[in-house]
């Protein structure tokens, strides 16, 4: 080894390993590790790669269903969507890099998740991004929003994969620790799925894609530590993305996959060459020998340590059938990508790494996976918040509505999505701004509905109910466009698991997810955990982001939020008790973050949703779920999307008015149906045991003939005025 570095206690500590973990390494190896081995252990045993704090809890999540082909544990999850088509999808966090270098952090987050999907043989067809920023007046927020959004756009747009949905929210708990959760959805054929298990000995291990450089070294370890004032000095550990190379890699991999030359393939993501080689050998029950001199290198004098830990982007590792190297090489050369046979699989169950003729690492592959530490961290479950909430019953509702529509969380996110190419691939049949995006399965009438959801303020107030709500809302959003929800992916963003209260949020959150996924038959098939989202001791709101995928059998029977006709009856499906606790209304209008998070009745959720989906299949074309901001916000969104007004006829006692229009009760939908059909639908609802009421009509106008939103106790406001306030905030804010 050139210039060997001694493994001293300080060096061990710098690698994020504690004394007990180091002792275990010595025990597993039967000797002290080399510096290369220490580096390998440090990344593979990092929280990011090993899930050491969450693994015992994650086991409780439901991950199977008859339509699930691949659950967690592979590069991405896979579900059957009929006719030999499968959907491959996953969401992953890139929080820490995006805070340090927002453009590259977000861009490589998108690139990484796309590789996870196409490494399984799928062509990515949709990209989604769930983003959480600090409060708008924090000095860093504007810069972070601009950088993250343009980073996501630059990568996805060049790849030619439409970015179709997501979320953008703001809260002070993210001031020093933003969240960037990127989801990718792909399509493959059921008989052309590729896995990462490198079965068999003597098979060539090939390296394809970009050359290896010094970027991203110890990214996985960085993502497993909390932030402090020095974190920005970690900028060199953020990787740099090259979407052009990724596009070539995508096409080259799919071309190679059309042959039968591949035994196993995995992308080099977090912990690069280390994790891809050891995980492939581990899953295949084999061993692996690699020679680092064969690795294509971007810089001279890279050490073995640097090569093993580099997180240079746009690289893949594949194990081929013996004798197929030339065929594979020809494809990668056509796409002008590096291709190199860097080693072979073995039957030794060991990972052996050579560099300049010397063995620099020689370790059992299971030492990096099964033998990784698992912690049963102590936790305390905080009592959920509760109690009556206070509000001023006589506050003018229309004024409040206008204010809500211009808040950072409820305003139009057009400024964001217009920077993403959401129409490329010519299959985006439901575009950003609705409840869920719908992407047509190319060449068919089927559609995939996808969305991302979570309401972190509910999760803070009640981690268990909040997590249930995240799943229920994703399920509801897919239902609202007419999709049958099939499966989810999750990004579990929490703070420091070494603090019992934070660990309590993680445990309760995972339990809530599990319960909701079980009852709604909406299993979790992939995902990741992002812990230590904390800066100088301040944790983020618990944010278990859920990415949902559902199936529309026929995209011609799809609902959107926009009012389409004047004179339609507006129907409210679901029970409205007027739950104002933890609502946007309470926070933005009364300045209070109090009360209980809304309870989620999963059986009711299912009953109401199944009823709504049935109506859409029978022809109902205008549906919106009621979420943040409550009923009046939802009506306003439908009016703005369609450019058609509405009149609401509900009459209430004075103290019921605000809760009715702004409460955030769950399991509710609005729909607009031709007035002549309303009674039949109400009767059908009654028969199904679903609460439904006729609350108004579309098409209200003022004296000048302008579309207005109005009603009893709701003085008319033109739809144009609603739109103006809804659209104004974000572009104005970004101007600075």
């Amino acid at each position, binding site marked *: 080894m050139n210039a060997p570095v001694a493994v001293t206690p300080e060096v061990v500590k710098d690698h994020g390993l504690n004394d007990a973990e180091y002792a275990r390494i010595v025990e597993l190896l039967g000797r002290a590790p080399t510096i290369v081995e220490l580096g390998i252990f440090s990344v593979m045993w990092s929280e990011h790669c090993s899930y050491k704090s969450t693994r015992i809890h994650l086991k409780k999540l439901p991950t199977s269903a008859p339509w699930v082909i691949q659950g967690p544990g592979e590069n991405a999850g896979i579900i059957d969507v009929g006719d030999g088509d499968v959907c491959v999808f996953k969401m992953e966090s890139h929080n820490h890099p995006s805070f340090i270098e927002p453009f590259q952090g977000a861009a490589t987050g998108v690139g990484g998740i796309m590789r996870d999907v196409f490494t399984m043989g799928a062509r990515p067809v949709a990209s989604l991004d769930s983003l959480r920023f600090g409060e708008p007046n924090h000095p860093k927020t504007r810069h972070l929003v601009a950088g993250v959004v*343009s980073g996501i756009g*630059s990568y996805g747009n060049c790849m*030619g994969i439409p970015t179709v949905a997501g979320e953008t929210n703001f809260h002070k708990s993210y001031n020093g620790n933003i969240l960037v959760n990127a989801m990718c959805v792909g399509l493959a054929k059921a008989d052309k799925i590729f896995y990462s298990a490198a079965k068999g000995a003597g098979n060539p291990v090939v390296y394809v894609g970009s050359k290896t450089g010094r970027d991203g070294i110890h990214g996985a370890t960085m993502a497993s530590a909390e932030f402090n004032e020095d974190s920005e000095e970690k900028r060199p550990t953020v990787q740099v993305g090259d979407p*052009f190379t990724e596009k070539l890699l995508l096409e080259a991999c799919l071309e190679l996959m059309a042959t039968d030359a591949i035994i196993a393939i995995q992308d080099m993501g977090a912990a690069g060459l280390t994790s891809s080689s050891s995980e492939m050998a581990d899953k295949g029950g084999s061993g692996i020998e690699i020679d680092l001199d064969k690795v294509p290198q971007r810089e001279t004098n890279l050490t073995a340590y640097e090569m093993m830990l580099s997180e240079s982007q746009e690289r893949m590792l594949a194990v081929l059938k013996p004798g197929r190297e030339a065929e594979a090489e020809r494809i990668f050369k056509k796409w002008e990508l590096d291709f190199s046979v860097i080693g072979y699989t073995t039957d030794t169950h060991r990972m052996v790494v050579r560099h300049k003729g010397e063995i620099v690492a020689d370790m059992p592959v299971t030492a990096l996976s099964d033998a990784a530490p698992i912690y049963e961290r102590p936790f305390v479950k905080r009592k959920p918040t509760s109690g009556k909430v206070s509000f001023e019953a006589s506050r003018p509702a229309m004024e409040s509505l206008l204010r809500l529509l211009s808040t950072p969380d409820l305003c139009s996110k057009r400024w964001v999505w217009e*920077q993403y190419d959401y*129409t*490329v691939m*010519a299959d985006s*049949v439901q575009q950003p701004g609705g409840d869920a995006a719908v992407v047509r399965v190319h060449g068919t009438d089927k559609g995939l509905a996808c969305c991302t959801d979570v309401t972190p303020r509910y999760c803070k107030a009640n981690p268990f109910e909040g997590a249930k709500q995240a799943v229920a809302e994703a399920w509801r959003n897919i239902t609202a466009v007419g999709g049958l929800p099939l499966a989810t992916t999750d990004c579990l963003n929490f703070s420091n698991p070494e603090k019992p209260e934070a660990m309590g949020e993680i445990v309760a959150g995972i339990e809530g997810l599990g319960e909701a996924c079980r009852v709604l038959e909406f299993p979790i098939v992939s995902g990741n955990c992002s812990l230590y989202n904390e800066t100088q001791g301040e944790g983020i709101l618990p944010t278990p982001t859920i990415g949902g995928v559902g199936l529309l059998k026929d995209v*011609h029977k799809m609902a959107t939020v926009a009012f389409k006709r004047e004179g339609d009856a507006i129907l409210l499906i679901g029970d409205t008790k007027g739950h104002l606790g933890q609502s946007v209304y309470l926070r933005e209008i009364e300045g209070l973050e109090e009360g209980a998070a809304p309870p989620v009745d999963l059986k009711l959720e299912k009953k109401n949703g199944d009823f709504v989906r049935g109506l859409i299949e029978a022809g109902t074309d205008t549906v919106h779920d009621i979420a943040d901001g409550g009923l009046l916000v939802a009506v306003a969104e439908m009016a703005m999307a369609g450019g058609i007004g509405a009149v609401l006829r509900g009459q209430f006692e004075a103290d019921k008015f605000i809760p009715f229009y702004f409460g955030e009760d769950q399991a509710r939908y609005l729909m607009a149906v031709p007035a002549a059909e309303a009674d039949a639908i109400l009767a059908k609802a009654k028969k199904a045991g679903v609460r439904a009421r006729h609350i108004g009509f579309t098409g209200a106008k003022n004296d000048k003939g302008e579309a207005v939103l109005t009603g009893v106790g709701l003085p008319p406001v033109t739809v144009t005025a609603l739109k103006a306030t809804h659209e104004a905030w974000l572009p104005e804010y970004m101007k600075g």
Partner: protein
Amino acid sequence: MKSAVVVFPASNCDRDAAVALEQITGTKPVMVWHADSEVPDVDLIVLPGGFSYGDYLRCGAMAGQSNIMRAVKEKSEQGVKVLGICNGFQVLTETHMLPGVLMKNAHLKFVCRPQALEVIETQSVFTRKYQAGQRVVFPVAHGEGNYVADDETLDRLEGEGRVVFKYAPGENPNGSARDIAGILNEKRNVLGLMPHPERVCDPLLGGTDGKAMFEGLIEALG
């Protein structure tokens, strides 16, 4: 009508263009790889949207130097129709098959949205099925669509009826000179435009305003 779509390594609307062409003409276009130096015998060559060679230099600059573009240029000189969409338009200016240049959008951001256009010129094989002054909506999706040329060139383009599409008044998405969205060459057989007609040939995608372009081409080219 026989057509071909040129595929650069990072073209990403090649499939969209091929699907639209096949739907409307009933025949699959030939896909021509960028490293080839010949274009087969066709009536229409489409340069699709995307990022050609990554476009880390000026958009289309490297594509402008490619083998295949030499062949496309030769064909166009023989009268073969060439349609450059988005990145294809950028490549056409870099190849000097069309005048002017496409700069970064004036607001410096990528913009994707349904875009209202006015059909200015119908005396072309590409726009013969549209009405002069007709308002159509095609999506735009680009970071560098800000068309720039000197006044003399712009006057000439307008004077010769070579400005085919303009962004609707007040809706210019990128700062382009005189709201120009698409232009013809002198021989009127090469059209470059930033908006995407191939993405609006299916009612499910938000409209069919793009169909008339391809239908007009079939009528004219058989």
